[in-house]
């Protein structure tokens, strides 16, 4: 009997605490993750276009001297600058750790793509999985960014 009274009091206290906390919090909406950023959205979309243009160019150059790394050095330099700019902006936003990690991974993938290209020209059958991986990354970053708009469909 005594045990059930203690249990009831514990439960009541817990509910009251939870209720009080929510009453305090209900004055403003709770935000666990950063807000949507249009600049990040546009920059990531533009970068996807740049990477896709690169893949199309390299595919069309297969077997010709144009496919060599030296002829595409500018692409890597520009893409690195873009990723750095997106990362700096992402770091300036509060509660944006997930997007920061995603941009870091994208930068690492670009470095690895560059290493692959330095070894040899990228063949069409190598480009296919690379294109899929980069597009999956871009889609993932943008999907989260759009979801941050809140109240809209995922």
């Amino acid at each position: 009997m005594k045990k059930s009274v203690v249990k009831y009091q514990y439960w009541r206290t817990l509910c009251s605490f939870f209720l009080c906390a929510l009453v305090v919090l209900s004055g403003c909406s709770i935000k666990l993750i950063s807000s949507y950023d249009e600049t990040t959205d546009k920059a990531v979309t533009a970068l996807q276009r740049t990477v896709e243009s690169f893949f199309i160019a390299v595919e069309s150059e297969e077997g010709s001297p144009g496919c060599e790394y030296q002829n595409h050095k500018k692409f890597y330099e520009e893409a690195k600058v873009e990723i750095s700019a997106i990362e700096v902006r992402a770091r300036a936003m509060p509660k944006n750790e997930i997007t920061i990690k995603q941009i870091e991974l994208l930068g690492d993938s670009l470095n690895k793509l560059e290493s692959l290209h330095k070894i040899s020209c990228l063949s069409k059958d190598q480009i296919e999985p690379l294109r899929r991986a980069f597009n999956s990354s871009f889609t993932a970053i943008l999907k989260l960014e759009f979801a941050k708009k809140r109240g809209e469909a995922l």
Partner: protein
Amino acid sequence: MSLNVSELATKMLDAAKGVLSEKWPEIQDYAETETKKLAESLVMIEKLKLAGRINEEQAKLHFDIQKNAARTVLLTVEGLGILAVEQALNAASAVVKDAVNTAVGFHLL
């Protein structure tokens, strides 16, 4: 009208559960589609290696890029989950707001 703690807690829980059950299937569908795509890519790389079209160093770089893509997808799944929890908490807190405002008879919250 006075506030009933257990009734209010039930309503809050229902509001939160409603949001989570609505969001989860969408997140699950996305995760399933993306992991399938990544698995297909891994098979493509393995075939390239076995056919001798790429060497070990190239295969490793390809796998690392796929691994990065997989981690990026999983981070989005994590983020969508956090956003769903956030919406669930806000839905529960809206229930409190409505109940308190109704109980006191004016817009307190």
